[in-house]
């Protein structure tokens, strides 16, 4: 009984601890924001791992989908719940902000999933490095389209999300952002775990091994590719929405190819097709970025250098394609993967 629910207990107690600590302000806002960015990074790296690791494609435009999610959910949130120069008074009574906030984030994710079709449909015919280009081009197209939308700020960016959070805190004073980031992170990991270990996920794995053979074995590759791309980009959109609300400000420039590179590094550092690897490397990478912050510009020399050295000694990433429970077999008593 204890073993069966151990993961649930662990997660609930972790979440409870986080909320308690944030509520009592025992940790500084800086550490709290680092923890929240960690959650966003976990969402991004695991969702990219779905495409790059499990499906074996090479997508390098993940930040573009994040951008769609961030903009859709923040514009929607500000439009509905906050007084704004552009959109005027709130459309709905801000008292509902609390209940509708997760819905807004999910709508952002859904919009990002639709943007994922931009990559998914060409992927029927295009493979490998040609698909990589399509993802880069999609990233540029999305950013450039938003830069040209002057009504939502264009390249100057868009803000006002803090007012939505204030509206939520007016109803019930709780640290809402950490709660939602935690909840969505768990949701994302749960969804991907269920996805890849389902029968459908076997199809994803089959595409990774050999697409032609999978097609012959009656795997509907086009359908699987479409859905996987949409799930991946949708989760990235959720991550982007949370990112926007944590910062309270978005501009298209922060979702450029450098951000995509960052996410890609997290995936390949953790190991392709390793869910726990992505989670661990996202945590590790976020901490590394913050620890090295005092170095300023040198940081971006030190981190790539470290990664190159890691690649030289472990050319398959930190975890390879193994999960945590493969490395520490005693963990299998508590949870199973697949």
């Amino acid at each position, binding site marked *: 009984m204890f073993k069966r629910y151990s993961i649930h207990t662990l997660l609930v107690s972790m979440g409870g601890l986080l909320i308690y600590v944030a509520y009592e302000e025992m940790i500084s806002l800086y550490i709290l924001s680092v923890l929240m960015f960690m959650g966003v990074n976990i969402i991004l790296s695991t969702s990219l791992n779905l495409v*790059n690791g499990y499906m074996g494609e*090479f997508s390098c435009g993940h930040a573009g989908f994040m951008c769609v999610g961030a903009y859709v959910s923040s514009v929607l949130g500000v439009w509905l719940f906050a007084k704004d120069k552009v959109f005027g008074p709130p459309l709905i009574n801000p008292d509902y902000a609390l209940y509708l906030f997760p819905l807004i984030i999910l709508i952002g994710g859904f919009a990002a999933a639709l943007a994922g079709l*931009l990559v998914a*449909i*060409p992927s029927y*015919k*295009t*493979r490998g*490095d*040609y698909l*990589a*280009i*399509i993802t*880069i*081009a*999609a990233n*540029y*197209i999305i*950013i*450039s*389209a938003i*830069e*040209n939308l002057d009504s939502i700020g264009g390249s100057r960016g868009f803000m006002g999300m803090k007012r939505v959070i204030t509206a939520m805190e007016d109803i019930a004073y709780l640290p809402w952002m950490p709660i939602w980031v935690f909840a969505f992170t768990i949701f994302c990991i749960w969804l991907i775990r269920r996805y890849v270990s389902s029968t459908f996920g076997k199809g994803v794995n089959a595409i990774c091994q*050999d*697409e*032609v*053979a999978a097609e*012959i074995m009656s795997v509907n590759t086009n359908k699987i590719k479409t859905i996987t791309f949409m799930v991946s980009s949708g989760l990235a959109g959720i991550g982007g929405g949370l990112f926007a609300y944590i910062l309270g400000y978005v501009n298209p420039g922060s979702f450029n*190819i450098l951000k995509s*590179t960052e996410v*890609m*590094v997290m995936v*390949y550092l953790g190991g*392709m097709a390793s869910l726990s690897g992505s989670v661990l490397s996202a945590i590790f990478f976020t901490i590394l970025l913050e620890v090295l912050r005092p170095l300023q*510009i*040198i940081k*971006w*020399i030190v*981190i*790539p*250098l470290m*990664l*190159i050295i890691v*690649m*030289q000694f472990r*050319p*398959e*990433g930190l975890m390879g394609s193994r999960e945590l429970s493969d490395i520490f077999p005693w963990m299998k008593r508590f949870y199973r993967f697949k």
Partner: protein
Amino acid sequence: MLATIIQNLINALQWGSFYALIALGYTLVYGVLTLINFAHGDIFMVGAYIAFFVATFCLATIGLPGWAALIVTIPLTMILTSMVGVAIERIAYRPLRRKGAHRLYVVITALMCGLILEHGNLALLGASRKAFPSLINEQVFTVGGVTFTNLKIAVIASAILVFVLLQWIVTKTRVGMAMRAIAYDKFAVPLMGIPMDNIIVATFILGSSMAGLAGILFAMSYPILEPYMGALIGWKAFIAAVVGGIGDIRGAFLGGFLLGAVEILVVAFFPSTLRDLIAFTVLLVILAFRPTGLFGIAKTTKI
């Protein structure tokens, strides 16, 4: 009307020349190693900076006249830039290749090398922009309403010259034959007694020196240098190479000019902020209809 068309055509050819020169480097390395060398855009940036230092050294310290400085700068920059490219290959890519790492990990390493070059430059030289000294007098010609400078003509001519040279090297010489052999079958080539590592180094020398040449020409045409100049142009050149059909020299050349033409035409008829949006949409549509690029050969996959 005709004058406008020709004017835009010349601008497009000049702008496309930079893309073509950089795309040639991408395509050479890709053709031989099937490695996307993402550091290549930054090698172009390093080339421009090397050209800056060599040129200012020649002009200020030695006191050469402008044309002589140019004659010294071009080969010296190409040699130094190719040394940077080869150094990256030796330090970062070769050990991974020996270990038989997954292809994408080499790509990530390439991305990291690019970041190191960019930020290393930023840390060493500071964020201030450098103004490239003018080496030759820019003369403006006007023929029937079409304006062009001698520099523009030089850029276009050197891009075409480089293309012809590379095409000759790859199709006619022994090194080129070895390159094509490696691209064809990596495992049989060492058995034939071909020194694979040397050929790969030769590929990187060719590709990087072309990036160096593009760096000089770019710095002469747009004499402001900054550390991030290589990133965007590098990504775009890579896209151009893919649209042309990566691994094929004609493809890279044509793709570069195509991208240049699309961008110049967009700027000519639409607001310039729409440049990236329309250019990339056009490329996406091309790839959707020809999934392996213009010159790429669709491979049949066997099980």
